[in-house]
């Protein structure tokens, strides 16, 4: 009985070890967010000769204001994934349109504290994305609806006429379109 337990335990440890070794987490462009797996065998890769123009509409809920929503950090994953797939940084042209409840993520820490009594966890993410060349855009209509002051918007984020006009404009300029809630 003791022996069986020992065997099971050691087998479990061995598989865990092998598993951990196999998983090679990487952050090629966005260092602080969106780690992804570097895989040895991949058949379908992005085209390194293409320009990747990508538009992401973020409309997630603010049910956990103390930490970043997956959809927001998924922008970092998207960028890291294209990089690990061979797309050069200069060929990545990503625009993010933030609206509805997600609008409240673009305000500075003081304004965020007033709303949620916690620090704004999105500030570092938006800084890193902006430094990597991502265009961050917030809906001007949502800013009003969610009673935010335009002057509280962090400097990395531009104010748009609306999310609808930004989404139509970027799509018509040839951006591939995602909507994440």
């Amino acid at each position, binding site marked *: 009985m003791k022996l069986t337990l020992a065997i099971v335990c050691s087998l479990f440890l061995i598989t865990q070890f092998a598993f951990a070794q196999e998983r090679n987490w990487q952050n090629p462009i966005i260092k602080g967010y969106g780690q992804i797996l570097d895989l040895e065998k991949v058949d379908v890769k992005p085209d390194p000769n293409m320009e990747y123009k990508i538009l992401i509409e973020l409309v997630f809920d603010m049910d956990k204001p103390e930490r970043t929503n997956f959809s927001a950090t998924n922008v970092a994953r998207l960028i890291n994934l294209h990089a690990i797939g061979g797309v050069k940084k200069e060929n990545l042209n990503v625009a993010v349109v933030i609206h509805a409840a997600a609008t409240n993520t673009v305000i500075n820490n003081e304004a965020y504290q007033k709303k949620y009594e916690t620090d704004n966890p999105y500030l570092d993410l938006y800084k890193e994305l902006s430094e990597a060349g991502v265009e961050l855009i917030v809906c001007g209509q949502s800013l009003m609806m969610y009673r935010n002051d335009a002057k509280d918007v962090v400097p990395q984020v531009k104010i*748009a006429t609306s999310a609808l006009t930004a989404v139509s404009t970027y799509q018509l300029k040839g951006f591939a379109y995602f909507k994440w809630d």
Partner: protein
Amino acid sequence: MIKRNTFLLSLALSFMANLSFSQGRINPTIKGYGGIFDAPYAVEKPDPTMQYNIVIDIASNDAEPDGIAYSLTNVARLMNLHAMGGVPKENMRVVLAIHGGAAWSVMNNEEYKKKYDVDSPYLDLFKELKAAGVKMFACSQSLRGRSIDHTKMVPEVGVATSMLSVMTTYQLKGYAALKF
């Protein structure tokens, strides 16, 4: 007496709040629906030199029978927002694929009344959207599925083979695709 004063005060306050709220909204294209906020501080604006070809999948219907589904009000907002952002009316080419629960909205008033015992709240909205050049189609599959008579629809809405074929066809023609 105190109760009555409080009541009057709250009435006056809510009136004032409503007034200032509606005063903040503008309707440059669709006058009766989809009021929006002016955003003079916006730096990211639509491009007034571009042609705005947009196809919209209209599926959701969150309203009571006497109210208008937000998905259709949002079309009025889209028209007003592009106009406010500087896009000329003639550059807007908008196509709707109305289906699913939103399909009930395309019944003419007689049919709507038969089903819901109230006048259709959509008649003026469809008229205004049509006058602004919006092309509207109902999915024939959704109509059949709900036994909506295609000969008893509002005159502004046509019938499409299906929502799916409208969405594929117009996207492949270069239309931006939205889902409301």
